[in-house]
C-alpha cells in the first residue's frame, strides 16, 4: 500500500490584527508540529473544534498555504515550497472541495459547461467525447435535469454537487474536502458523503475536514483529532470507542449513546 500523503512536523503561525489600529497583533499558532500519513485508498477524517487547525492543515497539505516549518510529500514528491508553476501540472491529481461551494463556480457558466471545461482543459478529453462524459458524470450525481442551470438557480446542495462533479471528472488520487456536510440535514449529509466517496477511484484517498464526527464515523478509516494545532488522538472507528474526552464530546456532545 503506497502512501499518498506524508507530512512531518508541520508548523504554521499567522498574525491576527488587534481590535484597534494601535493594538498589537496577536500571533496565532494554527499548527504546532503535526505529522500525517495517508495511504492509497484511505479515508481520513480531520476533526476538531473550530479553530483547532484542521482547515489550515488541509490547506497546507494541498499547497494553498505554505507551512512555516515541516514538509509535505505527495506521492513521494516534495510538495511544500514548490513553485506554483511546477505544481500546476500535477494539481489535477490532488483536488480541493472548498467549504463554500458557490465560490468555486463561475456564475456565468451552466452546470454542464463547468464540467465540460474541466474535461476539455484539464483532462485532455477530445471534443467529441466531452459532452458524453459530462452527461455521465452529471447523471451519477443526480444533476442531469439541472445541466443547463446557472449557479444562482441551484440550491446549496446542488452547488456542492457541481463542485464535486468537476473534482471527480479529473479522477484525482487525493481529494481534500473542507466541511462537505456543513449546513446540511442529517439525511443529506449521508448523501453528500456517498456522492463523494462512492464516485472516487478505488485507490484514491480522501481527507475530510469536519467537526461533525457523527457523519464521518461510518466512512472514515481513521479519525485524526486536532486541538490547538496538535494531534491529540488518532482513532480508528472500527476498533472501538475513542479514548480522549474531547473526541467523545465531538462525537456525541449530549452523551445520548451512553458512556463506553
Amino acid at each position, binding site marked *: 500500500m503506497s502512501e499518498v500523503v506524508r507530512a512531518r512536523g508541520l508548523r504554521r503561525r499567522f498574525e491576527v490584527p488587534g*481590535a484597534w489600529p494601535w493594538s498589537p497583533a496577536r500571533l496565532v499558532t494554527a499548527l504546532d508540529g503535526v505529522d500525517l500519513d495517508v495511504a492509497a485508498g484511505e479515508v481520513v477524517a480531520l476533526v476538531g473544534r473550530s479553530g483547532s487547525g484542521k482547515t489550515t492543515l488541509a490547506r497546507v497539505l494541498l499547497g494553498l498555504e505554505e507551512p512555516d516549518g515541516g514538509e509535505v510529500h505527495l506521492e513521494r514528491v516534495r510538495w511544500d515550497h514548490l513553485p506554483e508553476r511546477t505544481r500546476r501540472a500535477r494539481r489535477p491529481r490532488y483536488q480541493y472541495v472548498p467549504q463554500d461551494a458557490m465560490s468555486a463556480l463561475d456564475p456565468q457558466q451552466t452546470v454542464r459547461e463547468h464540467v465540460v471545461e474541466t474535461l476539455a482543459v484539464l483532462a485532455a478529453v477530445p471534443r467529441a467525447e466531452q459532452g458524453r462524459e459530462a452527461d455521465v458524470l452529471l447523471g451519477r450525481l443526480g444533476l442531469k435535469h439541472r445541466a443547463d442551470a446557472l449557479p444562482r438557480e441551484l*440550491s*446549496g446542495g446542488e452547488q456542492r454537487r457541481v463542485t464535486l462533479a468537476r473534482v471527480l471528472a479529473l479522477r484525482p488520487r487525493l481529494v481534500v474536502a473542507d466541511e462537505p456536510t456543513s449546513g*446540511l440535514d442529517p439525511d443529506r449529509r449521508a448523501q453528500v458523503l456517498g456522492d463523494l466517496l462512492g464516485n472516487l477511484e478505488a485507490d484514491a484517498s480522501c481527507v475530510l475536514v469536519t*467537526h461533525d464526527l457523527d457523519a464521518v464515523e461510518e466512512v472514515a478509516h481513521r479519525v485524526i483529532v486536532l486541538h490547538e494545532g496538535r494531534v491529540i488522538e488518532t482513532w480508528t472507528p472500527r476498533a472501538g470507542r475513542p479514548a480522549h474526552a474531547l473526541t467523545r464530546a465531538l462525537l456525541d*456532545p*449530549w452523551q445520548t449513546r451512553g458512556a463506553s
Partner: protein
Amino acid sequence: MSLVASLRGLTVVAGGRTLVRGVDLEVVAGRVTALAGPSGAGKSVTARACLGVVEVEPGVTEGSLRFPPLGDQDWLAPPRAAGELRARFAPLRGSYLAYAPQSAASALNPGRTIGRQLELAVGRRAPAPDRAQVVALVRDGLAEVGLPEEAARALPGELSGGQCQRAALAVAVAAAPRVLFADEPETGLDPVLRRQVVELLVEVGRRHACGIVLITHHADTVARVADDVVRLVPIDPEAS
C-alpha cells in the same frame, strides 16, 4: 403549567405552493418545545408566522394563535394581509415575543455596541425601567450569558461566533419575553459549542419563566433537551 402561546391549524401558502399545513404548536412557560424537521419543512415559516412576519403571498390562509396571558383573542384572525399582521403583532415583538435568528450576526446591529443594544432591548420592558435599573439589567444580562463586562463596549464584529450567539440571546431575553423562538442556534458551531449554547438557552429560558421554541434538525438535541416535540415534514419532498 402556564400556557403562553397556542397555535392551531396554521396553513401558509406561497403562490401556488403550500409551505405548511395544519401545524399545531403549544408553548408552555419554562419548557422547551422543539420544532424539528429537515430543511424545507417549514420550521422558520411557522416561527415567523407566530411573530406576524409573513413574507409570501397570499401568506397565512388558516390558523388561530392565542396568547392566554394576554386574553382570549385570536391574533391570526382575518384580515390576514401581510402588512396588517405585521402591524398587529408589532407591539408584541421584542416584548412578549422574542426571536433569535439563525445567524447571530443578523440579530445584532453591526454599528452599535452590545451594551447599547441591550439597553434598547431592556427599555422595552413594561413597566419601563429607570436609568439605574437599566444599567443593572444590562450587567446582569451579560453575566447571565457568560459574557464579560467588557463585552458591553464591543461591536458585534469584534466577537467570535460563539460570543455573538450569546450576545444575541442576551438581547432576545432582555425584554423579559414570554415566548422565545430560537431559530437553529446551533448552526455553524462545533458539537461542544452546540451543547453549550443550547444548554445556556434552556437555562436562561427557565430562569425567566419563558417558553422556548427551539428550531433544530439535530436529533440528539431534541432527545436530550426538548420537553415537547413538534415534527414537521415537507409537503413537497423534492424541495431543496
